[in-house]
């Protein structure tokens, strides 16, 4: 049963708004010209689907070697995002 008292809850997947904190690092941060933004998008959108909206070149795909972290853990770019998530795009790692 769906209550009509809770209009903010989705009645179908992908309809509710989600605020996501997006972070970029290193070469990716410099290429895009920003390090962090708050973005209002749709609950359930995936990092892969969000990327073309962020990339100034409007490329469909994540650049080769770029990995995704959700809430500071590596995640599949096809993971659905939830409201309040911290999403990061990470260029190829070079530590140690």
């Amino acid at each position, binding site marked *: 049963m769906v209550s009509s008292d809770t209009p903010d809850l989705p009645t179908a997947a992908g309809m509710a708004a989600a605020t996501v904190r997006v972070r970029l*690092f*290193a070469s990716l941060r*410099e290429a895009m010209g920003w390090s962090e933004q708050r973005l209002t998008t749709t609950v359930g959108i995936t990092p892969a689907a969000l990327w073309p909206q962020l990339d100034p070149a409007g490329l469909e795909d994540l650049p080769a070697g770029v990995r995704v972290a959700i809430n*500071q853990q590596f995640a599949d770019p096809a993971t659905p995002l939830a409201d309040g998530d911290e999403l990061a795009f990470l260029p190829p790692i*070079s530590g*140690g």
Partner: protein
Amino acid sequence: MSVSLHPDPFGPFLQVEQWQQQLVAGQGDSPAAASLFIGRVRGTGAEGQPVDALELEHYPGMTETQLQRLAVSCARRHGVTAVMVRHRVGLVLSGDAIVVVAVLADHRGTAQRCCQELLEALKHEAPFWKREWSSGVGTWVEGNTALDR
């Protein structure tokens, strides 16, 4: 498990010695084997140019958590007694220590294997990004050198 990031230079041997002394003070017994790796900033870059310093960017919060996770997982897999990781962040001068991995175990083989594996794991699975500074020009290093490079 002892993992930390250091914005300032540290003495790698001092770090390992203090860590080991604390462990022995707590446990009363020195494991028979210690395997250590210390990585320093190379004076020359991939193209042979002189490198003045490396700038090390990280993802505050995630980097620490990820290092801890890698250390715990490697320690469990190999059944070692204790693992220590020290990693610089920020500007690291040529010749300075950038990473230290130390593993204590009852047997030399497990200590050595865990030390090697954790080093590879953190090079590929912990969020760090290096920028080489050479004659005032900074270049992001994409990916890690192979084991033999």
